[in-house]
């Protein structure tokens, strides 16, 4: 037995209720929200809902904020509903990757080719643009994936596509943000374009049913105590997979140096307990700290050298960990670029490196996370944003190795700094992040290794 049937039953009931609420709204106007934690099976739920909506002869539009998320939805919907033709509506300079193409997928180029389609998939921007240009007609239902990542402005553009909405997403991920300081002008106000799609829907329509998926299929029970820090206490959830089902084993290897022995210790701990918090000595460093880059590359290279093998509920036989199932998660593009070059140079070109923004919605077996606060002289709103850490610490199925510095914990010790107050509903990333990071550091205490 691999699964916790109780949690799965609860999740099925919640999903069914959300879907029923959505289908019952047909002919009316309104929305339904399904909030889920990382790896809850949101895409599967959406794909299943598309099939059932088609059984009810509803024409549906499915949207997500980014191209990569839309690609994933196209594949998932097409695979789960082979009798449904999925019409992908791309932007001019975007093409569906060959790996995402299925027999029942067509691409609508130009978008008006999708005028009679029954299921269309695209980014929020593309679908709304095509709809406003009258290339696309009205649909019966609009399903939005990653709707906590979609901002109010994008939702405004897409909302008229259908009178009935199902907004699915992970409330713990990165909130919409802006590159301009002037965005603070709207904070707390009804018209704030940076509030989430779910936020603006619930603010204007407080009667909107909000369902909470009580499950994570990606994370296993060892991950839950740390990951729980990122979610509201009232959002109860558990792992679908039972303890001990997922295992990772590493071959023994001779470590000629003390540093390598410690790295081996960190890898062994991650393999056994699912977590390691590896700390370099305290120092205030540059964004692209060379020591952190070196350590991350060493960790990944050593992991490869120790020929890791996995088994899990999907594949109960021991099998090799593939390099493309390893990811390194960072906060800045320049960190990503430097790591990319360094990993390529040691033959780890297949290992994925990306920023938290781009890793949202993706899943790996092992993740090495460059902690957002690592080596900062001062904690600021960008790095404290709890969603960033949440994404980085919830991408893994087997193990997560968090790389930081010993001074990082001190950054969030004591009373948080004074931040400007804004009238109205306004979550403060600094205050939220301060508390969340304290809790995460405390939860990682058992897995800490000093380098």
């Amino acid at each position, binding site marked *: 037995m691999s699964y916790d049937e109780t949690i799965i039953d609860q999740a099925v009931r919640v999903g069914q209720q959300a879907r029923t609420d959505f289908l019952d709204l047909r002919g009316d106007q309104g929305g339904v929200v399904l909030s889920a934690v990382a790896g809850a099976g949101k895409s599967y739920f959406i794909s299943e809902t598309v099939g059932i909506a088609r059984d009810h002869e509803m024409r549906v539009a499915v949207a997500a904020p980014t191209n990569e998320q839309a690609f994933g939805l196209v594949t998932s919907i097409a695979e789960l509903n082979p009798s449904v033709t999925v019409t992908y509506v791309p932007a001019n300079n975007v093409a569906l990757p060959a790996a995402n193409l299925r027999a029942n997928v067509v691409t609508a180029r130009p978008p008006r080719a999708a005028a009679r389609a029954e299921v269309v998939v695209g980014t929020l921007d593309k679908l709304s643009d095509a709809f*406003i240009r009258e290339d696309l007609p009205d649909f019966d239902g609009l399903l939005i994936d990653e709707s906590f990542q979609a901002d109010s402005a994008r939702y*405004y*553009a897409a909302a*008229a596509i259908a009178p009935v909405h199902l907004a699915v997403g992970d409330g713990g991920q990165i909130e919409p943000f802006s590159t301009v300081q002037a965005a603070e002008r709207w904070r707390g106000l009804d018209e704030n374009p940076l509030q989430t799609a779910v936020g603006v829907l619930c603010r204007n*329509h407080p009667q909107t049913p909000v369902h909470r998926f009580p499950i994570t299929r990606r994370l296993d029970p060892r991950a839950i105590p740390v990951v729980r820090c990122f979610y509201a206490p009232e959002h109860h959830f558990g792992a679908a997979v039972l303890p001990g089902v997922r295992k990772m084993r590493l071959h023994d290897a001779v470590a000629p140096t003390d540093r390598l022995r410690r790295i081996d210790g960190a890898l062994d701990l991650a393999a056994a307990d699912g977590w390691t918090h590896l700390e370099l000595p305290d120092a205030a460093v540059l*964004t692209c700290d060379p020591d952190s880059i070196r350590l991350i590359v060493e960790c990944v290279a050593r992991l490869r050298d120790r020929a890791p093998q996995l088994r899990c509920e999907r594949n109960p036989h021991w099998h090799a960990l593939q390099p493309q199932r390893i990811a390194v998660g960072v906060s800045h593009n320049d960190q990503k670029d430097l790591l990319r070059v360094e990993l390529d140079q040691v033959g780890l070109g297949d290992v994925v490196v990306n920023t938290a923004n781009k890793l949202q919605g993706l899943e790996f077996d092992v993740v090495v996370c460059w902690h957002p606060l690592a080596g900062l002289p001062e904690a600021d709103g960008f790095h404290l944003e709890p969603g960033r850490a949440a994404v980085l610490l919830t991408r893994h199925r087997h193990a997560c190795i968090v790389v930081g510095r010993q001074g990082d914990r001190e950054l969030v010790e004591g009373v948080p700094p004074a931040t400007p107050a804004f009238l109205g509903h306004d979550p403060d990333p600094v205050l939220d992040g301060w508390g969340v990071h304290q809790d995460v550091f405390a939860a990682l205490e058992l897995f800490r290794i000093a380098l």
Partner: protein
Amino acid sequence: MSVETLLAARAHVEGRAQRSASLRHRRLVDDPMAVAFWQLGAELFSAAAIGYGRRPNDLTIEVAGDPRNRDLAFRALMEFAGPFIDYFEGPAQCRETITRRTYAYERATSIPQLIVANSHTVAMIGNLGRRLAYLSTDGPYAADPQLIRLGRHPMFIARHSLTPAQQRIVSMSDLTREHWVTALSDYENASLAALDAYVEPPGGLHGFHAANEAEVDPVGPQPEGELDAELEPLMDAFNAARDKRTDPKVVLPLLGPISAHYTPLVERAYELIWRCYARERRLPEAPSSQRRFIADCEAYTRHIDWTNRIGHRRTRQTHRQAALSIRALEDAQAVVWAEEATDDPLRMVGYLLDGKALDGEVVRVDENHREIVNVKRARRPLVTLTCEEPCRIPRGRILYWSEHPRGAGWRLEEVVAAPGGASTVTMKLLTGTFDALPCVGERACFSVLHTDSHYRQNLPRDVPWTHTPATSPPAPQDIEERQAA
């Protein structure tokens, strides 16, 4: 950014600020108006003292007496309103006609430019405008229409100040920080006096010590230290002497002690503003300032025309306006970053260090390189550079030639490590039509920055149901009636 860290360390070692830009990235007009405000610590929507002038030695100071009193605050503002409105509306008289295909419109050829000490002053100007622009011109508390006109301009100025690199109002501390790097903290850098002292430390002092001495004297608009405590007995005496009267004949003769309190404070701020203005003006102006200046002229012309025809402005934006505004601001910011770095090699250094740009000598140009694009062969020129540094940009990344930042992208095709840490990089132009290519023997810089216009969101005119409250909020009640009830 790492280059700032390097410059901050050098500033500390050399004892004076280091330039982070070799050009001036804002236009400073010939005839700006310098404005310095002071306010009471607890009254953010009134001016206790106003200093203004169009020349360094031409300062006019107005003092309200007690700005908590509406009549007294407005009296001082009325004195300021005349010269300010004359200055602000003057450039709108001189216009040129711009023709865009079949559409022609008029645009002022210049703008009025306010130069102030810091961003707190910009915020205060916005607060003042917000207070004055919506005053009623009838009823028992009718305000002079001149005050309302005065309010509408500062409201526009404060809103326009959110536009990246606008030049309508220039905060000297922000401008100086954009052009110089010191070893001061952000908090210390916010003091124009400290910043100025670090940039030009007097008498061989180390910049840190000069800043330490200079920052003791604030430049407003908010009082620091014991300033309000020193003012309190003066104001008490003033209020006792005027005995609730606000008639200028009574009040003006009583203002002496309060004027004496504020005059040195205003003079100091005013002198600092002009000093920084003169220093920054000595630098050559970046070419792209002209584009932003035209954008400023257009926004200014629209504002003046609207003020003359209608004048009313919303206090809050609609969802649609806010959504369009934030995208426009983000686009503008991206273009400004790109313009500044492609104009100014010193600004590009940060991008080179961060692995967002590469720079090298062009060693080969294959203008007629062809390859299969979709289904037919097409020209895709190749340019090979020798870079002195290792290239840390991954293959496949799209970059833009800094000489043509509006042009098509170039894909980083190949990186070959060369001896001594150098690298040979081949870039491929992603179009077959082009105006120019880098030449062999010249240096070329490619970066992630481009100044082409970005995606513009298309938004429906009708507000969707999701953005409309299910139940309307209660109608606002008159504040006077509510208090009476």
